């Protein structure tokens, strides 16, 4: 059946490989993907290890529905201790890697140790080989993949690889597959680089047996139609995720000039529709009918004629909004560069914008920048800084260390202008008018993270009965819920609920854009329960799936606490509280987050989690979820 995929333990120091089946019992507790990774990380990493040392463990995994007919079940999850935050490190990406990993016979890879010289893994129909990577070391993301395909003689090979940034251990380096599928945030690429692991190449022709094929075909078709019928899916299938930038900037919900302002006005030139002119059709991840990334060729400038995919709304935020640029070519070129260097677009943009504000404030001078004019709006400087960060040249070497380490090196007041949580830069969105979004980033397990618990539909002004329908299952909720996104009422539950929702899909391996992230009528726990049954034969109720999510989220929390996380770090930087928003529609102007009210939200949130007032899981919570004996070393 679809569950007969294995877990492989690979020790790069000794060169040993061991494969084991994954017991159905573990599946029922953690499903796969991020859920099981949470378990594995908690069990395989000793507290306090150096994230860039050989004792860190890199996990690569496929969700339990990956490669099945379930819509958009294409997600690959990578986890390790983060060299950026020092806490739970994790990234999740689409594309074709994890389906291919499953066709090659594996669901989870546990990679330990450090290779003596650059290597890559070659995984093929149940076999794993460690190969010399000296020929591809130093190559960019796409050249590496093409070179591996050439070397192994198969065009169908999918490879997850690091670029130059990962080799240089830029602390927010990505793991990448294909042109643009990026495992971003928390620096998993740096972990790979630190292990001298350049790439993981996979190719397989093994069956993934569907438990109930005829029913699966019918049901999956129904779910696909449910997703594609949504207006937002159709917009995204035309314009990509850029439409999110368009919609939020129109209201004033974006950070610009490193959080000094909240709208990039007169920015018609970088509206999604403008990008559309330069694209030729859309591309999709494995098995997805929404197809949200554009295929484009850079129309102008130094990189004219280069093919790439995307950009995502995060890139437009990172390379237009935050540094205050309005140039289309810059965004397209920057997107291409971060893809090929293998860096987190969002972190790069955040760091550059931060440096620009420091330059504006005189904290960084021409001497520090090597003569580069880091004024806001200087497009050439943005591109130049991307190169420098990836290659760790000059100021780039400092910025490559991530928010906290860089601020420490630069000193003065520089930390005051950093927009981060737990040492990870925040998305370009301005969350001051929306407490629910602010609470989400403050409490997310991997730092300022909009993909862990963000109730994005809170911005939709949905009627309360609809909110009740959504947030009232699979566990009942009777407390307050409000349509107004500027309100504080009930937002803690929404964030808590979304956290379980996203953990569930990350464990299943489904894309978040096929969940309530984007719209109220997207698939939900109920649909996933059926998808699981028809595709894999696992019988799990919506509540069972909810509990899997609870369990895995709990382990992520426990991991962070073990690494020294305190309640103080579930918090935002002062700018959220002290500097009111200046632009946008009336509703959004003059907004700050209220410290007391956020405290209250966090307390409520802890309560829903079953944590004590310090944010530590209560013994009874652990018992209820069966986690009291962790680490249990069952896998």
């Amino acid at each position, binding site marked *: 059946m679809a569950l007969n995929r294995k877990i492989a333990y690979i020790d790069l120091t000794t060169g040993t490989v061991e494969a084991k089946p994954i017991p159905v019992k573990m599946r029922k507790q953690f499903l796969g993907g991020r859920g099981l990774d949470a378990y594995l990380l908690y069990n395989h990493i000793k507290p306090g290890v150096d994230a860039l040392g050989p004792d860190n463990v890199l996990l690569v995994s496929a969700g339990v529905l990956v490669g099945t007919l379930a819509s958009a079940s294409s997600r690959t999850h990578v986890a390790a201790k983060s060299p950026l935050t020092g806490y739970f490190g994790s990234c999740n990406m689409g594309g074709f890697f994890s389906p291919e990993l499953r066709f090659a016979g594996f669901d989870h890879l546990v990679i330990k140790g450090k290779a003596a010289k650059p290597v890559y893994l070659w995984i093929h129909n149940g076999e794993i080989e460690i190969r010399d990577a000296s020929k591809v070391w130093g190559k960019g993301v796409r050249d590496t993949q093409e070179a591996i395909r050439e070397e192994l003689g198969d065009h169908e090979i999918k490879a997850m690889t690091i670029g130059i940034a990962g080799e240089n251990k830029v602390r927010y380096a990505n793991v990448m597959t294909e042109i643009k599928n990026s495992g971003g945030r928390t620096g998993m690429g740096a972990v790979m680089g630190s292990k001298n692991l350049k790439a993981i190449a996979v190719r397989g022709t093994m069956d993934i047996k569907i438990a109930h094929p005829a029913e699966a075909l019918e049901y999956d078709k129904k779910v696909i139609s449910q997703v594609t019928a949504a207006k937002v899916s159709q917009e995204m299938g035309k314009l990509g995720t850029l439409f999110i930038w*368009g919609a939020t900037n129109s209201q004033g919900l974006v950070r610009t000039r490193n959080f000094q302002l909240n709208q990039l006005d007169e920015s*018609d030139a970088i509206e999604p529709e403008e990008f559309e002119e330069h694209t030729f059709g859309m591309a999709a991840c494995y098995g997805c009918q929404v197809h949200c990334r554009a295929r484009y060729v850079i129309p102008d400038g130094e990189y004219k004629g280069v093919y790439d995919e995307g950009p995502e709304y995060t890139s437009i935020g990172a390379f237009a909004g935050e540094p205050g640029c309005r140039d289309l070519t810059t965004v397209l070129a920057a997107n291409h560069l971060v893809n090929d260097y293998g860096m987190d677009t969002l972190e790069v943009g955040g760091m550059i914008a931060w440096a620009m504000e420091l330059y504006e404030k005189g904290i960084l001078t021409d001497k520090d920048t090597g003569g580069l004019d880091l004024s806001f709006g200087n497009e050439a400087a943005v591109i130049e800084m991307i190169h420098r960060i990836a290659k760790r040249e000059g100021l780039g070497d400092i910025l490559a260390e991530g928010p906290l380490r860089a601020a420490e090196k630069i000193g003065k007041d520089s930390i005051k202008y950093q927009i981060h949580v737990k040492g990870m830069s925040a998305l370009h969105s301005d969350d001051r008018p929306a407490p629910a979004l602010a609470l989400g980033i403050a409490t997310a397990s991997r730092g300022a993270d909009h993909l862990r618990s963000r109730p994005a539909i809170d911005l939709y002004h949905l009627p309360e009965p609809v909110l009740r329908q959504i947030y009232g299952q699979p566990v009942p909720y009777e407390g307050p819920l409000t349509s107004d996104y500027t309100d504080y009422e009930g937002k803690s539950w929404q964030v808590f609920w979304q956290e379980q929702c996203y953990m569930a899909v990350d464990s299943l391996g489904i894309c978040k854009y096929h969940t309530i992230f984007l719209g109220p009528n997207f698939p939900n726990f109920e649909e996933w329960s059926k998808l699981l049954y028809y595709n894999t034969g696992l019988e799990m*109720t*919506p509540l069972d799936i909810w509990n899997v999510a609870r369990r895995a989220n709990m382990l992520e929390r426990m991991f962070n606490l073990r690494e020294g996380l305190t309640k103080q770090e579930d918090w935002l930087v002062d700018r959220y509280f002290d500097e009111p928003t200046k632009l946008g529609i009336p509703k959004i102007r003059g907004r700050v987050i209220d410290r007391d009210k956020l405290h209250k939200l966090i307390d409520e949130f802890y309560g829903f989690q079953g944590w004590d007032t310090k944010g530590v899981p209560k013994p009874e919570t652990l018992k209820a979820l069966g986690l009291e004996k962790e680490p249990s070393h069952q896998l």
Partner: protein
Amino acid sequence: MTNERRAETTAEATARGRTYGAFRCLNCFERNTAPSGAKSFKCPKCGFEWRLSWPMPTQPRIRGPVWETNRRLAEEATAKQTKGEK
């Protein structure tokens, strides 16, 4: 199958409220419709003006604000509010 619980899931139920062709004003959340292919739109409720695009022939989307109008309206509203507070 065992976990076939009820005929309609939450997502299916909420989907019944879908309004194709309509879009919400990003300021006041009023549901509006616009003449097919219209390039811009003024919200009858709040007066904010938006530029439209048509990703699908029947479904408009707010492309962005008419910058000047919306900025002026927002500044007026904020001024009124501050005055009221004083």
